[in-house]
């Protein structure tokens, strides 16, 4: 990928590696244009030959919100931190959809690009990274609807919104971290493909999307936040809707868990990377 000055010597050394290896983030940086093009491809191709096109990005969280509002909000009367239930759940579904879709597609990214992996060299990290990034477009669309809803229900966006990018980053890191683990495993064990729908479903109920985390006692809430999506969802609600779940121990625990996932995921991915082209 690098374009070199005429006399600059490039030397690639090839030898077998063993065990845990460095992440080679510098090399990933050299391939940033490829990451850009892969992301761009995923965005372009995602809704090709669909009737509703990009509106799918909105339909998914919106319909889930409608179902939740009906069953949990109206019928089960789940509390919602004093906020209209539709806004309450939709504000959580927007980052959740970004997380879950990213996870879903990125975990299959290596397997579905098997041909590429067997025929061209590039840092394989670029693949799941680009796929998770490409979900950003969907996020923006769904987020615009969220802003509309907030005003529709006569609420205003709070000043805490300046912290929103942090929570978005947290969502991204979590999604990428899990995707790195799962995509690398998926290369060898296609069982992963069947685990994913199952995993996201369970994970969704382990995250305060349909209900507030206030249902748990303070002590348990910190443990609960080991699920990084807990910090994300509560963070989103706090930043946008001004719920009283201000960043505290929960967000710290969630951030820690997310970074741990990302770090271990990256190293595991790099460890498995050497066999991708042979096994996939």
């Amino acid at each position: 990928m690098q374009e070199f000055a005429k006399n600059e010597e490039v030397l690639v050394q090839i030898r077998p590696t063993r065990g845990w290896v460095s992440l080679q983030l510098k090399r990933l940086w050299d391939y940033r244009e490829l990451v850009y093009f892969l992301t761009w491809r995923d965005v372009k191709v995602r809704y090709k030959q669909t009737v509703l096109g990009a509106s799918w990005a909105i339909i998914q969280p919106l319909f889930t919100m409608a179902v939740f509002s009906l069953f949990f909000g109206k019928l089960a009367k789940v509390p919602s931190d004093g906020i209209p239930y539709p806004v309450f759940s939709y504000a959580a579904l927007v980052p959740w959809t970004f997380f879950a879709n990213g996870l879903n597609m990125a975990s299959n990214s290596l397997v579905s690009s098997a041909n590429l992996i067997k025929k061209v060299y590039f840092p394989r990290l670029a693949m799941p990274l680009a796929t998770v990034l490409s979900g950003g477009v969907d996020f923006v669309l769904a987020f615009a609807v969220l802003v509309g809803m907030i005003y529709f229900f006569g609420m205003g966006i709070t000043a805490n919104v300046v912290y929103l990018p942090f929570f978005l980053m947290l969502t991204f890191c979590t999604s990428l971290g899990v995707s790195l683990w799962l995509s690398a495993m998926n290369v060898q064990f296609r069982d992963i493909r069947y685990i994913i729908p199952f995993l996201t479903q369970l994970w969704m109920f382990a995250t305060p999307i349909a209900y507030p985390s206030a249902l748990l006692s303070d002590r348990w809430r910190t443990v609960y936040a080991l699920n990084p999506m807990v910090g994300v969802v509560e963070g989103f609600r706090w930043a946008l809707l001004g719920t009283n779940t201000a960043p505290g121990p929960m967000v710290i625990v969630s951030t820690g868990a997310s970074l741990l996932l990302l770090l271990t995921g990256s190293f595991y991915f790099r460890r498995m990377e050497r066999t991708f082209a042979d096994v996939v």
Partner: protein
Amino acid sequence: MGTAILAENLGKEYRIGGRQEGYKTFREAVVETCISPFRRARNLIMGDASGASGLKETIWALKDVSFEIRQGDIVGIIGRNGSGKSTLLKILSQITEPTSGYAEVRGRVGSLLEVGTGFHPELTGRENIYLSGAILGMRKREIVKKFEEIVAFAEIDKFIDTPVKHYSSGMYLRLAFAVAAHLEPEILLVDEVLAVGDARFQKKCMNKMQDVGQEGRTVLFVSHNMPAVTRLCRNAVLLEEGRILQIGPSHKVVSAYLSSDAGTTAAREWEEKRAPGGEIARLRAVRVRSENGETTDKVDIREPVRIEMEYDVLKPGCRLLPVFYFHNEEGILVFESNDMDPAWRKKPRPAGHWKSTVYIPADFMAEGIVYVGAAMVTLDPVLGQFDEHDAVAFQVYDGNTGDSARGEWPGEIASAVMPLFKWRTEHEQGHAMTEASGAGRAGAR
């Protein structure tokens, strides 16, 4: 000029499926079934590459390969299918890691192991140029700079904004090659991508390759096309079963390949675990037999010859099409022959061991070495099972006895086939030849 590529004792070990030992007792079977998922899960976490199928046996696709390539050299890599050519290119392009040894590559590497790498059918030609260019390692501004040139080379300017899924296969290949041809790495690794498109486009591609060589870039070129190798490459490497058999000036290496056992052999057999093939059929043997059934690598032009392939059908219920194809020394495909035996042509076949034989009549092939490729496709759906280039070879000779198709003519005949057809020559009485008409005919010639 310095060294561009240096390889020292490169080796690559692949895991292949081996038959598992049978269970001895019911208890063992139960215990094994319960334990193995846990063992595999542990392997998964520890990064053992045995995969879900628990592959245990290994083969060395490449072993102790050492060589040095100077900057600006064009080197052909030849050898049979499975001799490790592609593995070598994959290691040098960093697609896969070697199991042992060391290599260093000086300069920016571009590898072309396939035409159309990274193309997406839903994207337009324009979009695919950018995407494929980026995947092959071009910078965006490089692609922008060469965009017009690529489009002109591919001859698709009218369709540049059409999704490539609507392209004809010729257009698709042309565009794909055009992108690849405009890569400008210092070292280019190419795996037989030249065999695409119509003859005119192939010629254009060959010229492009020659230009690349003249610009002083280093090229490694894997091919089965011997004439192309001798024409394009100064040096060549001959691989056999993962090892280097010979290395040197390309014409010498090519003729060694063609005349050696590696190139021509009247019979080839594969052990079960090394047999080339897919999920449905595996090739086990190919043989050249004379009229009386002996395997032979020399055939008199006046005698018939038959080629047989033995293969295992692993999954029952598919219709199969065995194919032989015949190349001459110039690399020209002389003819291809599909199994037309009505016995099994339209019937799904049970699993088991099979043999298909083609009968080539006497007085048909031209003199020289004939390379026989053996291939198999399933028809529903159409899926390639194996395709073994130059599986066997034999020499057709003409003893100039006067009764072959050449008759009494002693000189060289450069035709691809030499069939003996029926001729009739009559001396027609009653056609009086006038001086004028005779002169007219001579003038017309």
